[in-house]
């Protein structure tokens, strides 16, 4: 591996806890130029597929490319929107139904920028980041998830 400057790391092992989200929100209370935050959370659904219930998703990624893509998407968002802060976290590994696997957090002076940017980030992540998910059923069988 080279020692070039690494982009900020997005991937975390395991689910994203509500406490982590609270801590992240709390860190922004000193930034008194912020007027609006928008937070998107992706939560694993217990979908029923052909009579079987999804109990969780096991996430893997082509990690180096994915972190690079996250970095590019962050840069594009900072370019496009007038943001004070931006944070993205995505889970890897097995995440149970009901747990949170994606946390996108944008902050701006005004609401429209925060909301537009959050939506942009979520759509870019879904479309362009090489993350893969195995939907595991209660009987341990599985199928590969595809984003719609």
């Amino acid at each position: 591996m080279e020692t070039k400057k690494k982009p900020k790391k997005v991937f975390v092992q395991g689910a994203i806890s509500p406490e982590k989200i609270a801590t992240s929100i709390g860190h922004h209370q000193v930034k008194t130029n912020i007027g609006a935050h928008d937070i998107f959370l992706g939560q694993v659904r217990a979908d029923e597929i052909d009579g079987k219930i999804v109990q969780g998703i096991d996430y893997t990624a082509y990690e180096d490319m994915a972190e690079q893509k996250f970095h590019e998407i962050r840069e594009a968002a900072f370019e496009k929107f007038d943001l004070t802060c931006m944070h993205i976290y995505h889970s890897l590994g097995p995440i149970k139904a009901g747990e949170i696997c994606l946390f996108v957090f944008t902050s701006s002076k005004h609401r429209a920028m925060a909301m537009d940017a959050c939506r942009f980030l979520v759509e870019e992540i879904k479309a362009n980041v090489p993350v893969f998910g195995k939907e595991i059923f209660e009987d341990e069988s599985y199928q590969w998830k595809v984003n719609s």
Partner: protein
Amino acid sequence: MMLDLKYLGRIVEVTGVSNEQIESANKMDLKGLRELLNQRYPNLKSESFQIAVNQELKSDDYLIDRTCEIAILPPFAGG
């Protein structure tokens, strides 16, 4: 030149391995690589995948002319 191949997600179930190296004597575009892979793993024909060269998605007319990392990427499912 050496092609350092990485298979991701459901593609690994077709190839049985997640990494392998292929030595290629000639330049090759990604269309050619797809044909090579389909011969090596006939079940790949029914899989949908994109190809990244050195961690960037490239189209089928992209020419591989030097040693590089090539990733075979099934549909994304992030978020």
